[in-house]
């Protein structure tokens, strides 16, 4: 069926305008949540969210239809965050963060992983059910590790998508995830030890 020119125009225009709303609005809660985690301040999170949407709206004409919109808009949010005050402050911690090894340690490990990080499943369960301790541990994570773990665990993005958003190689995504989880487990472990010592 051949459409008349004006009908075609209506269809193209409405596809473009409804697409942005259809694609972006369901992601609004996720974007706000990530913005809040990154900025750790409600006002800055709102600013970051609004600026992200303004930039996304402006750049939507250049967005390639059919490609990964979620990765595209999360990348805008992340880049906008990096040029913000809190983002610049977080950037300064990257140099130190890069010195961490695969396990999240700044010192070389003296023992193989299998020797010291083996806990019973019961111990693991006890540690992981401690919601407050995990929350505290997440808040202590450096920004570069926090963003990668939130994108992976909370947003359930694939390594490839995370690599696109953060503009880093997949290998770096994998090592950052490993470091982030090692950091969290170590924090939870030290929290449990402290609690046990306090009880004793």
């Amino acid at each position, binding site marked *: 069926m051949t459409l008349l020119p*004006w009908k075609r125009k*209506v269809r193209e*225009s*409405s596809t*473009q*305008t*409804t697409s*942005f*709303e259809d694609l*972006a*609005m369901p992601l*609004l*809660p996720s974007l*706000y*949540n990530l913005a*809040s*985690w990154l900025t750790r301040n409600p006002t800055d999170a709102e*600013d970051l*969210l*609004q*600026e992200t*949407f*303004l*930039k996304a*709206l*402006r*750049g939507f004409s250049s967005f390639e239809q059919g490609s990964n919109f979620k990765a595209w808009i999360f990348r805008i949010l992340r880049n906008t965050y990096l*040029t913000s*005050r809190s983002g*610049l402050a977080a950037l300064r911690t990257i140099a130190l963060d890069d010195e961490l090894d*695969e*396990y999240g340690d700044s010192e070389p490990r003296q023992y193989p*992983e*299998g020797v010291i*990080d*083996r*806990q*019973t*499943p019961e111990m*693991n*369960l006890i540690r*992981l059910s401690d*919601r407050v301790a*995990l*929350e505290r541990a*997440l808040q202590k994570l450096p920004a570069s590790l926090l963003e990668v773990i*939130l994108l*992976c*665990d*909370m947003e*359930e993005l*694939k*390594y490839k998508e995370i690599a696109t958003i953060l503009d880093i190689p997949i290998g770096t995504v*994998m090592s950052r*995830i*490993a470091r982030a*989880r*090692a950091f*969290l*487990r170590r924090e939870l472990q030290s929290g449990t030890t402290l609690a046990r010592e306090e009880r004793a």
Partner: protein
Amino acid sequence: MTDHLSSLTLNALADGELSADQLGIAKEHLDTCPSCTSNALAQALLKTATARLGQRYELPAQVQRRVERLVTQRASNIDEPINGDRIPPSRSRKWIAFSGWATAAALLVILCNGVFVQRRTHQSEVASVSHSALITEICDQHIATLAANLPPQVLSSDRHTVKPWFQGKIPFSFNLPENLPADTKLDGANLTYLHNHPVAQLLYSIGRHHVSIFVQEKTGIDDSSPLMAEHSGFQLAGFRTADLEVIAVSDVDSTRLSELVGTIERTQSNIHRQP
């Protein structure tokens, strides 16, 4: 098999990122290694716990409404009226038309008032959001310039060097003052971008305080928001001409900043767009 699974493998397993071959090898090892099984379980539990805990910040309703309005307003600007898709009027009857028109006229007056008020509210809200985003971006640019600690792209205290440097780089022109307030000097300038538009960032010093003055072309949005403000401890001052919007940011006190901005404003008499 004696080698334990690496932490990268255990994480990829928890994240479902192992290929079929890798998964087969990992499962084979897990069948015989309680230690790695325990670790794999812990990684999976940690992932679930983090995912649950990560959904912590709930989107406030007013933020959602504001963003929705912003999107709607912007989207409606893209829409254009299309000729030809009008429904032809039905057969006219004079008495129906007369009473209909009379009622419509009355309703129109009421509706127009309502729509006008609502539209003004929407427009002012969008303008306010855009202005607030602009102020945030300006402060970020100023902080980024200070943090980078790099020399300006054009390093000169001579206005006859700084102004011509922008020729062909920005689609507008501006004037720089010859005589500056006491203890104030021009350090240079950068070409930068605000909201993806080229902007002149003039760098001044007042004593030991650094000042960034952003000169940009006026946007299409009817924004009458005041340019004097304070944002995150920084002072902002500015002015608008027919074509330009000028915003200065610094940590110097507002009086001295306004004095510099006033001096620059007085020189903007012969600004014009570059072809």
